[in-house]
C-alpha cells in the first residue's frame, strides 16, 4: 500500500515533531525512524525531508545546531522548541478530529 502524496505531506509536520520530541536528531536518523514507525508504509524520498525541516526551523518550531557525528563529519542536529511542542499538541488535536470524523462516517457506511 502506498500513501497518497497529499497525505504524506500533511502528516510530515506532526510526524517530524513527534520524533524530535523523543530527543534531538538529524535528517538521516529521522527518516530511519519514520520507516520503522510506519512499518515501511510511509516512504519519503530522502531529500524531501530537508525542506520540511527548514520550514519548521523558519517557523520556529525546531532549533538547529551544527555538531559532529561519531565519524567526525559535520552534522546538523534538530531540536524541538517550545513553540514546536505547542504546535504538536494542536496538530494532535486536529488529527484526532479528522480521525473521529472519518471513523464515524465509515462506521455508518458499514452499518447501512
Amino acid at each position, binding site marked *: 500500500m502506498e500513501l497518497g502524496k497529499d497525505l504524506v505531506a500533511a502528516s510530515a509536520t506532526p510526524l517530524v515533531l513527534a520524533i524530535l520530541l523523543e530527543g534531538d536528531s538529524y*535528517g*538521516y536518523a529521522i527518516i530511519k525512524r519514520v520507516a520503522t514507525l510506519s512499518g515501511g508504509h510511509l516512504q519519503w*524520498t*530522502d531529500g524531501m525531508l*530537508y*525542506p520540511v525541516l527548514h520550514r519548521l526551523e523558519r517557523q520556529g518550531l525546531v532549533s538547529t545546531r551544527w555538531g559532529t557525528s561519531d565519524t567526525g563529519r559535520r552534522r*546538523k542536529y534538530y531540536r524541538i522548541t517550545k513553540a514546536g511542542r505547542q504546535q504538536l499538541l494542536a496538530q494532535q488535536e486536529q488529527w484526532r478530529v479528522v480521525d473521529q470524523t472519518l471513523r464515524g462516517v465509515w462506521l455508518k457506511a458499514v452499518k447501512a
Partner: protein
Amino acid sequence: MNNLEEQISHWREYVRRHRTIGSRDVAELEDHLRDAVGELTGAGLAGDEAFLIAVKRMGSLDSLSLEFAREHSDRLWKQLVIPADGEHAGASRSELFVVVILSMVAAIAIKVPPLFGLEFDQHEDVYARNLALFVLPVLATYFGWKRGLGLITCGWLVLGFIAAGMLANVYPFTRHSDTGTLTALHLPIACWLLVGVAYVGGGWFTSTGRMNFVRFSGELFIYYVLIALGGMVLTAFTVMMFEAIHVRYAWFVQGWLVPCGAMAAVIVGSWLVEAKQAVIENMAPVLTRLFTPLFTLVLLAFLATMLFTGHAIDMDRDLLIGFDLLLALVVGLVLYAASARDEHAPPGIFDVLQMVLVVSALLVDLLALAAIVSRISEFGFTPNRVAALGENLILLINLAGTAWCYGRFVRHRGSFAALERWQLAFLPIYSLWAAVVVAVFPPLFNFA
C-alpha cells in the same frame, strides 16, 4: 574508496549548481548521503553501487531543488514580482515601503542645498564634495533597518557621517581648488566603508561578511549602470515629447529628473541586489571571467611592445591616475574571481591566468612608477600627485601580496583561502587612505 570520494565530490559540485540549494544545505545533504552509503556498504554492497542507490533515494535533483526553492523563496527572483504567500509577503511588502520612503528621502536630500541658496550652477563644487553624503547615509539607514543594527553601531555610523559632512564643508575650499576635488573623489570611498559596516550588520570583522559586501558592491554597480541606461531613455523621451509641444522642460529634467533619479537609483539598486541574492548567477563574476583573459592579453601585448620598440613610458601629468585605475581594475578582477570561486577547488587554468594578469599588471606599474620617480623633481609634490602616488603604492603592495599568494597556491604550497584573506584584509585600507586624503591633505597643502 577513493572512487567513492570522487563520485561524492562530483555530486556535490552538481548539487551546488542548483542555486536554490545553499552551500550549508549541500553540507547537510552530503552528510545524509554518506550515512546512506555507509549503511548500504555495511549491508554488503560495493561502494559505487551503494552510491548509486543512495543518490537515487535522495530524489531527482530537479524536484529536490524545486522543493528547496519553495521553502527558501527568499532565494528566488520571482519574489520580486510575484508576492510570496504566507508570512513572507508581509515582510517583503514592509521592505518595499521602506525602500520607497528612503528613495524619496535620497531624492529630496539633493534638493535641500537650494533651500539655503546654494544653486547647482554657481556651487557645483559644494555638490561634488557632498555627493556621497546625499545618498550614502540613507543607504546605511536602509541596511541598518534591514539588519537590525544595535544602538552602539548606529551611533558610530552617525558619528562617521557627521565627521564626513564636516570634512566636506568646514575647510575653506575655493571653487576650483585641487584639494577640494580630491575630497570630492575620496569622500565616497571613505564613506563606502561606513555603508559596509551597516551592510554586514556590524560584523565587519568576519571574512564572509566582507566578501558578501564585495559581492554586493559589484552587483550594485551593475544594477546602477542598468538603471542609468533606463533613466537615459526616459530622459530622452521626456525631452523629445516636451520639445514637440514647445513647453520649457529644462528646469524639470536638469533640476529634478536627473539628480533625484540618480540618487534614488542607488537605494533601489541596493534593494534589487538584496532581493535577488544568490538566485541568478551573479553578474560580476561572469564579467570577470570574460575580461580577465582580455586584460591579460592587452597587458602582455603592451609589455612586449615596450620591450621590442624600446619606447619608455612618457609620464605626463595625469597618466599616474590612469595607472592607478588600471591597478584598481586588476584588483577588482582578482576580488570578483575570488568571490565566485569555490575555495576548496584545486588550482586550475583560470588561476594561472589570474596570476599572469597580476604579474603583468605589476610589471607595467613598476615601469610607470620608475618613470614618475625619475621625473618627480620636475613635477614637484602637488596634492593630486601625492594622493595618486599613495594609491599606487597601496595597490602595488596589494598586488605583490596577491601575486605571492597565487604563486604559492598554483604550486600547491598554499590555500586559496590565504589569498582571499589577504584581499579582504586590504578592504578597509582603501577607505582609510581615502579618509586620510580627505582629512589631512587640505590643511597640509593649504587648501590649494
